[in-house]
Structures are given as structure tokens and as C-alpha cells.
């Protein structure tokens, strides 16, 4: 397992859920430390456990503090972008999707996780995953058409 790549994936996943860089980073590191204290070593198939730990830590974080809908960091990132308008459109289209669908799209297309890893992480069958992914893509396309 490429540790740096895995770190980026978990961090991106946590950031998607928390929307705060420093908290996302803390949770990412906590995820790794918890995993290593239990299992001692990493293997390629272990990424799903990391996602599960990260998700649980995010839930703990939600309970601890009420999440803010939009942080300054997001606005900042948008301002920095060359393609601000386009990104904003996609972001708006994504935000209209249920969080579960957004999570699916992130795991599949941004983190490039395999269907096998995803189905095990989310605790659903491969068939259900394919169907949900297809639906999420379809909804995103429709939302994009509306936005445009």
C-alpha cells in the first residue's frame, strides 16, 4: 500500500465530510494511528477499515460540534480556481445529491476505489453498488443540465 496515496484518499474523504482542513487532518492522522494500534501493519485490502474508522471519527466529530454548512476554506478554494464558474456549477449540482450519493462518487471517481473495496466498506452488494452509482451519475447529469 502506498502510504502517501492512502493518506490523501482518507484525508479527501474526511475533508468531504468535515469541510475543515485542520480537523480533517487530525481525523486522518487519528484514523491511521487507531488502525496501526489495532492491526500493527498495512496491507492493500486494509483501506476499507481505514474508511470505516474515518467515517466513525467523523460521526463523533458531528456529535461533538454542529457542522457549519459552508466554511471559509471552501470559498477560498473556489476563488483560487482557474475554472471557478464551472467548479461552482458542478459543486452546486453535487450538493443537490444526497450525501450518500456524493460519497459514492467521491470514492469511485476521485479516490478511484474498486467496486469490491467500496461494497465491503459500505456493506452493500456489488449489484446494489452498481445500481446506486448509476443512479448517482444520472442524477448528477440531470442536476448539471438544470444548472447550466
Amino acid at each position, binding site marked *: *500500500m502506498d*502510504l*502517501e496515496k492512502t*493518506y*490523501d484518499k482518507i*484525508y*479527501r474523504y474526511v*475533508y*468531504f465530510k468535515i469541510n475543515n*482542513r485542520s480537523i*480533517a*487532518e487530525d481525523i*486522518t*492522522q487519528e484514523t*491511521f494511528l487507531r488502525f*496501526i494500534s489495532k492491526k500493527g*501493519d*498495512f496491507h492493500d485490502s486494509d483501506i476499507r477499515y481505514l474508511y470505516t474508522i474515518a467515517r466513525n471519527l467523523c460521526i463523533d466529530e458531528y456529535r461533538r460540534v454542529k457542522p457549519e454548512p459552508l466554511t471559509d*476554506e471552501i470559498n*477560498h*478554494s473556489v476563488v483560487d*480556481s482557474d*475554472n471557478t464558474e*464551472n*467548479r461552482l456549477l*458542478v*459543486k452546486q449540482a*453535487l450538493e443537490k445529491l444526497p450525501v450518500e450519493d456524493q460519497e459514492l*462518487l*467521491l470514492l469511485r*471517481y*476521485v479516490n478511484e476505489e474498486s467496486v469490491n473495496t467500496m461494497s465491503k466498506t459500505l456493506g452493500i452488494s456489488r449489484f446494489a453498488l452498481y445500481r446506486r452509482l448509476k443512479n448517482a*451519475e444520472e442524477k*448528477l*447529469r440531470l442536476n*448539471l443540465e438544470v444548472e447550466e
Partner: protein
Amino acid sequence: MNKKELKAMLNDAFYAPEPEEKQSFLKSFPPRRITMVEFLLQQISYIRISSWIVFLAIVAVAIFGSAFGIGMTEDIVTMIMPFSVAVAMVEVNRSRKYNMAELEMSTRFSLRSVVFARMVILGIVSIIILAISSPVIAGTFGGKALQVAVRVLIPYLITMIICLRVERSTLGRGNGYISVVIAGAMALFISCADSYTPAIIACYRELLADWGLLMVIALFAIAFYEQWKTVKTMEAFA
């Protein structure tokens, strides 16, 4: 919108700012223990494509030569088999020359273990080549697979022993491709021996029929000893 566009778009939309403490955290992280199999598999990926092409070429010659009934197939395989030793030696040399710079985790493994791993991998590949070629040749041209293997193995092992000895010498350390010259000389010797010294070759073949297997075992033992010596002295060269 195709999948590629969708991916690019989502990558952009799920933007996350660069983590600030990633490098310091990863540096403090204990390196992952890997198994011997993982280590060997990792080393396979560092072996150059040109080396695999040579190995595949030997198997291809054996298979196609047998398929088309080319009478000299066994001789050709015997002649080109020493080049697999040359390829292995070039790979070993590469590890030494670059001080494993190609290894991402060079601090975790000694040069000795890397060289040993490569020798093991290339040795296994050579055995696989032999295991494929010998029955194919024996099946087409008659005879036993073991006899064919013995005939192919003897020049191969002799080349290996010479290469390992020369590699340890000053001449070998100075010239990364000396093993290719040795393999070429062995191939030339095999091709000329039949024509120029038929009596000796006939004698050699008779000897092989009775003592071939024993000779191979003895040569294997010498080759192992030479490999052990090469690996042992490797740290001093690094």
C-alpha cells in the same frame, strides 16, 4: 459526458486543500513490514523489460522451433540459454552500480538482500524457461525431458559460474557487460564445437548419458557457492 470527463469534473469539485502536516506525520510513521513474497514481487517490477524480452525469446525459440520441427532447436536453446545468465548479471550489476537508487525504500533493505532477491527471481525464471522448453523439445524430437534439461543446463551453469567469478574480479566490477561477452563466447564455443571437435563432442555426449545428472548437481553446488560468495562480498562493493 464520458467517464473521463466525469472523473476530471468530480476531481475538481471534490477539491481538498493540501494537508499541511502530511509529510511530518508520514515520516514519523513506522515503515511497514513486508513479507518475503511481497519483497520478491516488488523486485520483479524493477527488472527491466529488455530482460523479460530475452527470457521470452528463449521460450519462443523452444516452442516455435519445436512447432516447425527445426532440428537445431535444442542446440539453439543451449546456445542462447547462457544469455539469460548475462541478463541476470546485468541486473545484479545495475543494483550495485546505482546503489539501489531505483528502490523507493532503499533504507529498509541492504544491497545484499536486493541482489539475493534478484538472483532468486532470475534463477526461478530460468528454471521456468527450462521447465517449459525441455518437455517441448523432448516431445518433438524424441528423448527424455530430463536429458534435454541436462544438456541445456550444463553450459548455462558453467557460464553462470564463470560470470560470477569474473563479476567479483576487478575486470568484472569495471565492466557491467562482461557477462554478455562471456555468454557470447560460450554460445560461439557451443556452435563451433560440433563442427571442429566432433570426437570430443561425441565423447561429451556419452559422458552426459551416464554422468549428466551428477554433473548438473555438482555444477549447481558450485554455482550456489559462487552466488553466496558474490552476495557476501556485495556490501563491500556498494
